[in-house]
């Protein structure tokens, strides 16, 4: 095939010579995470002082010995100080003084090969992707730790190890941290890193927005954790009102951190949509777009359109708590229904924000390791678009028993069940792709298969929940819990690990240890199922969510779940060990194209050069033409002069407001 004939570029190591970048100033003289930290601390105390000055004499503050205004303003100023310390606003000030922006340093080769660039406001989308990778793993591990705490408390219905309030705190932290993490765990690392590579672009549309999107996630992480210092928040990840208005100051951290993460999601999605529409290489038709990019594209739409509603809802929650508006206080003309509507109008697209990138990754993986074209490319695209569109019209299936618009339930039952049609497309494509394939059982492939296994169970249990009478039994019980853990963890996290094992060789030129990888997969797959399958039964037997105690006859089942949950945690440790050792010490080189993939990113040197492509590539064929005799190479990476020039219209006068091509 054409791939083998591709010449390998230069030496494999990604880090370049040790001494490179030695000429520049030492890291601590640059603006970076350390200056950002200083700014954040200073900002917090300033804001806290200001808040005490403004809100200290509220009746609410003096009666409750708490001042939410101080906390919230502290958070806001801390974030601003953090960004200022990072140097996010430098370019803005340049522009406001009318100066032109400096060229992106990576194009001038100023971005050293060292590690310092990962702790700076770096504009290279590949750097941002790697920052996301580590950031999201940190999120994931912390959230997982809270899950362990939850299962510890549930070991006994009677003897309380961490007690009811700490239990609620842990539940809330776990849910929120995981939800915040999941929404970026694939789009962050792989989306930012491979999006531009897959569409054959040297750059993204708004690199500053992209980098800002990442640099908002560390403060979100810290702020969410800081709620523990204030006693946590008792509402779980949904933050239902008016309980949220009633809660102590820990609640502010929830609203603020979730809102912050929302903004980060919006920025990332915004940049991705514009990039995918406008920065595709010549010949990269919509019909040749890799499926992962399609998934990213649809998700970005959800992020840009649905997440603002979350930001609005979080903002309203904060004003209710600080400046005492009454959005959600029924006695004063507000409504607790309002929050439920706003939250779930975001919340349901959110679960597809989590699901769709997973679909994209596993599609890439199965096509590569089945050595076959996708079965029904258009069907898959239709599936992604259909899911994305429908997800805006189903939110009230979370509210079947709440008494909100009960006569609308048949409609929302229909829309909810309709989603299973486009989701079915995903399975049709997968099943068709496996037919007459040559299946390689590599680790990414195993994770992809596990994805289809888990997501099937999760999806089918979702059909049970869409049916109102059945939902009356299952709503708000452990059944729902099991359902969304099957779709989110069983789906997205398995896809994430698949993508990790699949793309890490490309990102770092290093591949993870295979044996440990296989052990990791099998333990994770086994214990995931032993953990969450019994939860369906627990829900059916009448165990509500977020309870610190339960009926005594459910103790055996809960203990079983807890123990296998600990084993699941242990399998994550196996991964962590493998990751750290392989990345830092073993450093097993993997150059070129180990999977013999046709996809564009694998045609580049490993890891990709600073500016991705020496020339704008010209795309000649789709990425999935496996097994086709004399198939064209996927792209011409060094097109003759003139080709690119003919790809765009000559510069026209006046403000350019042309429709985008295709």
């Amino acid at each position: 095939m054409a791939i083998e004939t591709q010449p390998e570029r230069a030496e494999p190591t990604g880090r370049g010579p040790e001494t490179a970048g030695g000429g520049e100033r030492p890291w601590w003289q640059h603006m970076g995470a350390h200056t950002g930290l200083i700014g954040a601390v200073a900002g917090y105390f300033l804001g806290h002082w200001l808040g005490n000055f403004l809100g200290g004499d509220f009746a609410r503050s003096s009666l409750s010995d708490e001042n939410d205004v101080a906390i919230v303003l502290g958070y806001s100023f801390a974030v601003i100080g953090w960004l200022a310390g990072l140097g996010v606003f430098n370019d803005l000030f340049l522009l406001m003084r009318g100066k032109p922006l400096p060229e992106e340093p990576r194009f001038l080769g100023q971005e050293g090969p060292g590690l310092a660039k990962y702790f700076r406001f770096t504009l290279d989308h590949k750097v941002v992707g790697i920052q996301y990778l580590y950031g999201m793993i940190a999120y994931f591990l912390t959230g997982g730790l809270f899950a362990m705490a939850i299962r510890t408390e549930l070991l006994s219905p009677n003897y309380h190890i961490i007690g009811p309030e700490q239990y609620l705190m842990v539940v809330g932290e776990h849910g929120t941290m995981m939800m915040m993490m999941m929404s970026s765990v694939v789009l962050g690392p792989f989306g930012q890193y491979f999006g531009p590579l897959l569409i054959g672009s040297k750059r993204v549309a708004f690199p500053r927005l992209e980098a800002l999107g990442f640099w908002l996630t560390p403060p979100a992480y810290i702020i969410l954790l800081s709620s523990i210092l204030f006693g946590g928040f008792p509402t779980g990840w949904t933050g239902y009102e008016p309980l949220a208005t009633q809660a102590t100051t820990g609640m502010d951290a929830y609203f603020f951190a979730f809102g912050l993460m929302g903004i980060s999601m919006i920025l990332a999605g915004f940049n991705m949509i514009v990039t995918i529409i406008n920065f595709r290489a010549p010949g990269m038709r919509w019909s040749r777009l890799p499926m992962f990019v399609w998934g990213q594209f649809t998700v970005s739409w959800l992020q840009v359109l649905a997440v603002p509603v979350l930001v609005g809802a979080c903002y309203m929650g904060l004003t209710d708590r600080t400046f005492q508006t009454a959005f959600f206080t029924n006695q004063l003309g507000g409504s607790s229904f309002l929050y439920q509507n706003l939250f779930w109008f975001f919340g349901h697209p959110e679960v597809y924000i989590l699901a769709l990138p997973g679909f994209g990754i596993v599609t890439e993986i199965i096509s590569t390791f089945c050595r076959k074209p996708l079965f029904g490319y258009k069907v898959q695209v239709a599936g992604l678009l259909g899911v994305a569109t429908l997800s805006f019209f189903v939110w009230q299936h979370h509210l079947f028993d709440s008494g909100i618009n009960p006569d609308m339930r048949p409609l929302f039952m229909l829309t909810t069940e309709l989603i299973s049609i486009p989701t079915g497309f995903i399975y049709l494509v997968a099943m068709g792709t496996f037919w007459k394939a040559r299946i390689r059982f590599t680790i990414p492939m195993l994770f992809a298969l596990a994805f289809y296994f888990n997501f099937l169970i999760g999806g089918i249990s979702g059909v049970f929940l869409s049916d109102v009478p059945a939902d009356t039994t299952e709503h708000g019980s452990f059944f729902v819990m099991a359902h969304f853990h099957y779709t989110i963890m069983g789906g997205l996290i398995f896809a994430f690990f698949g993508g990790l094992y699949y793309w890490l060789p490309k990102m770092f030129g290093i591949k993870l240890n295979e044996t440990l990888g296989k052990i990791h997969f099998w333990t994770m797959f086994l214990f995931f199922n032993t953990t969450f399958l019994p939860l369906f039964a627990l829900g059916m037997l009448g165990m509500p969510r977020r309870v610190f105690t339960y009926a005594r006859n459910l103790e055996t089942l809960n203990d079983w779940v807890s123990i296998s949950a600990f084993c699941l945690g242990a399998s994550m440790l196996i991964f962590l060990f493998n990751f750290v050792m392989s990345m830092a010490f073993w450093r097993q080189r993997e150059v070129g194209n180990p999977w013999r993939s046709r996809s564009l990113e694998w045609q580049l040197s490993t890891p990709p050069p600073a500016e991705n492509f020496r020339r704008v590539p010209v795309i000649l064929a789709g990425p999935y033409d496996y097994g086709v005799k004399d198939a064209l190479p996927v792209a011409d990476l060094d097109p003759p002069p003139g080709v690119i020039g003919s790809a765009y219209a000559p510069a026209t006068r006046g403000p350019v407001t042309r429709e985008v091509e295709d």
Partner: protein
Amino acid sequence: MSSAEIPLPAGRHAAEREQRRIWWLVAVWLLLSLAACLVIWFVWYPHLPPGDMTTSARHQQFDIAVLAVTAAPVILGVFCYFAYVLVVFRARPGDDSDGAPIYGNAKIQAAWIIGTSMIVLWLFVFGTVELIVPAGAGAGEGASPIWKQSGAQTVAWTPGTNDILQVQVIGQQWTWSYRYPQFGGMESTVLDLPVNTPITFHVTSLDVIHSFWPYLLGVKADANPQVDNVAYTTARQTGSFIVRCNELCGIWHGAMTSNGTVMTPVAFKVWATAVQAREKANGTLAALPPYALTYDPTVIPQLGKDLVNVVGVTGAPGYFYGPGNPVTP
């Protein structure tokens, strides 16, 4: 490259063998599905939650069973297919050839889309019927239900007739209490109900959102402040049950349970009248606010606003809102 398959006598035999294999696959799938459905329906269904204590519980049990029977063949189909392809089409060691370049198959895709659409349509029709016929199947129906339960709205409830028993469920942090308007609006901490009687629950809350979930009764309705959420059911068996809170409501959410009993109508009448008499005697009825579908705890008839506003006395709204927001309309 697709021609580079496992060496076989001839293409035609290969095709026949594959045909046979596929028929085997379909047969296995059908047999498994049939077995699964039979097991689900005849073995599992009678024991499925939430049991058959009330009409609504029966409907939910029925729905879950029907959905399970619908879902089993789908799951089994996908699993059988994957089991087949993973075994048959695995790459033998040393085989680095590619699969057959199949880009799609209009017939199969159309069939799949039609099939899934049919299933969805069936689920929708079934679900809607099952929602409307049993008057909401025990789910919260909001303040003014459009699918009502049959029965006579009466001021006084008499056993043996078709009178609807009105029960108000009041959620508060962190316990339940129940008012019986047809018995002088007396209030109780236990939920006692008559069998074979249409029952209407009026679920409301005094503070945050709770959710009223008597699991065995197959009823679930959120308790929202200032909102009357109606749910219907009719008990078919006597026995005791537990009420749980199903919506996170604060520190004691997990422990917010209370007990109830379904008893014969006559026994219920005796119990209810006895409680009413006792509460009349010790002044509880007089102390309670007049029965209403929702309550505003910030309005305290017996207590002048002045006392509520005395500094040091925390008003019922907890003074979250200062005097600038009058606590009474």
